[in-house]
């Protein structure tokens, strides 16, 4: 890696070198909100590097409504949500480079980017915000046996084909996975004239919102088959059918339950993975559960002056929370540039019990007098009803929030107020989820 870079540097005298206060990698909702917040905090020299031909990221293909209910207090479609932020960074005069691919970010914040017009550019940044988002899990990640015919797509790829390129990927589809993208694509395929034979879900419950089950499946009589999975994809040139089997509590297929569904298309909606190749090269440590960087409450990683926010940090279910989190990252990076951050002598370690799968951030390392409350984001392991999320320190319960229902698919925000943080019995917080009667 280092050798090839030196070769490029020595053979191209023309490689531009630039210096900037802040370089944001990625121009989706996370990068846009981070840039906006940093600018509003007083940093003007900001560059956004985006590999696509336009800003907005995945929102541009998410043409359905349901975005912005928390942040804008109105229901928007993905492109409408994106356009609000695209206009806002344009008004602020943020330097935007489209069709620009970041090849490397070094631990000392040199960013190597390439595009058609400028060739290679070296950007030396005071602060870097990683906002690369996530990508979809593919068939390879699932090891579905069978032949390798055409017609197997991730749901997001099919979404881009249909919503942005005007191409329907098939006429008879089976969708694996009932997360929101799978449900939304079932409706979309149906409304565009395809038959959606079934949505197959391995879990006993759907990973999507009830609203989407009703409005995307029930409205059109599309069957949702829970505790089943595709065990084989059949066909030579094109998908001809899938073999589906019921699964036991151990998620293993039950012999003898096989049946076949004829179809020419299989859409996979089976999870998202934060896209952290650049982060790892920069020396950023990743969290084993989220797959994203380990960060403190300012969203700074273990590599000083490199921050991360949005789906590259942990996969969010609502873009509104991506915006909220990215504004924290942008604002924090700006305040740090201006030497306005007061570091704690000893960070507060944020821990959790095994009821929760993860909590972001992992530690609280600054004191911020302008911060009234600090949001902690978390997910439960399994669905639970009538529970309290509790916050304790030194064996003492400091605060709790009631939830009628907590589900792995729905991120929980727990806001800790600054007074509580200032008066902890020990520099350690523990989050737990307890049934109402035990709380």
């Amino acid at each position, binding site marked *: 890696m280092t050798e090839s870079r030196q070769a490029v540097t020595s053979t191209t005298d023309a490689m531009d070198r630039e210096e900037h206060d802040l370089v944001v990698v990625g121009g989706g909702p996370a990068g846009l909100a981070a840039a906006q917040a940093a600018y509003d905090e007083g940093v003007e020299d900001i560059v956004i590097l985006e590999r696509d*031909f*336009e800003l907005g990221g995945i929102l*541009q293909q998410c*043409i*359905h*409504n349901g975005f912005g209910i928390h942040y804008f207090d109105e*229901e*928007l*479609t*993905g*492109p*409408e949500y*994106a*356009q609000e932020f695209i206009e806002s960074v344009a008004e602020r005069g943020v330097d935007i480079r*489209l*069709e620009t691919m970041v090849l490397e970010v070094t631990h000392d914040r040199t960013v190597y980017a390439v595009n*058609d*017009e400028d060739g290679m550019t070296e950007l030396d940044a005071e602060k870097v915000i990683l906002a690369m988002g996530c990508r979809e899990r593919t068939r390879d990640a699932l090891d579905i046996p069978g032949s390798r015919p055409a017609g197997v797509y991730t749901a997001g790829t099919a979404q881009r084909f*249909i*919503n*942005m*390129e*005007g191409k329907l990927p098939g006429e008879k589809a089976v969708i694996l996975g009932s997360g929101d993208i799978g449900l939304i694509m079932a409706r979309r395929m149906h*409304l*565009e004239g395809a038959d959606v034979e079934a949505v197959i879900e391995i879990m006993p419950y759907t990973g999507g*919102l*009830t*609203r989407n*089950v*009703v*409005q995307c499946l*029930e*409205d059109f009589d599309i069957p949702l088959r829970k505790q089943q999975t595709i065990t084989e994809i059949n066909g030579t040139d094109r998908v001809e059918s899938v073999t589906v089997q019921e699964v036991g509590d151990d998620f293993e297929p039950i012999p003898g339950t096989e049946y076949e569904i004829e179809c020419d298309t299989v859409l996979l909606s089976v999870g998202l993975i934060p896209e952290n190749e650049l982060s790892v090269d920069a020396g950023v440590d990743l969290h084993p559960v989220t797959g994203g960087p380990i960060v403190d409450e300012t969203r700074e990683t273990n590599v000083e002056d490199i921050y991360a926010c949005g789906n590259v940090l942990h996969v969010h279910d609502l873009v509104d929370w991506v915006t909220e989190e990215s504004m924290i990252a942008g604002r924090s990076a700006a305040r740090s540039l201006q030497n306005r951050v007061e570091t704690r002598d000893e960070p507060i370690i944020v821990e959790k019990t095994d009821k929760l799968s993860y909590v972001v951030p992992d530690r609280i390392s600054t004191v911020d007098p302008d911060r009234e409350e600090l949001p902690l984001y978390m997910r439960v392991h399994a669905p639970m009803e009538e529970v309290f999320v509790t916050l304790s320190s030194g064996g003492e319960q400091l605060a709790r929030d009631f939830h*009628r*229902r907590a*589900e792995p698919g*729905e991120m929980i925000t727990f806001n800790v107020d600054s007074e509580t943080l200032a008066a902890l019995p020990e520099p350690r917080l523990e989050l737990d989820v307890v049934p109402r009667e035990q709380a």
Partner: protein
Amino acid sequence: MTETVEITCISCPLGCDIDLEVEDGEILSINGATCPAGEEYAKEEYRNPTRTLPTTARVKGGILPLVPVKSAEPLPKGQLEAAMEEIAAVEVTAPVELGDVIVENVCGTGVDIVATRDLPAEESGPLAAD
């Protein structure tokens, strides 16, 4: 004759299963809703179910061949497929601006179909930078 209509509430993530007892279109009783918003949703969903319709419309000369659109207000649920056909018959010319009316009074519902993003014409678009 009394019949039971099952409705899944979408007002919040609880997703209560609500049973309506109805006779000749009259709601006699509502069971299973755990809050007033749920009862209200069930009544509305029984009497006049509506949905916002997000889809796309064809564009000539744009940086993309399609522009995303939505119904400016929710449409009667039964009109969704008819609205899709009316929108499919339309081709607009770029540039398009967010909020532009793409189809007026779709299916006679009084609701317009509007664009949900700006779509520049090809020559002035970012794609033409090459």
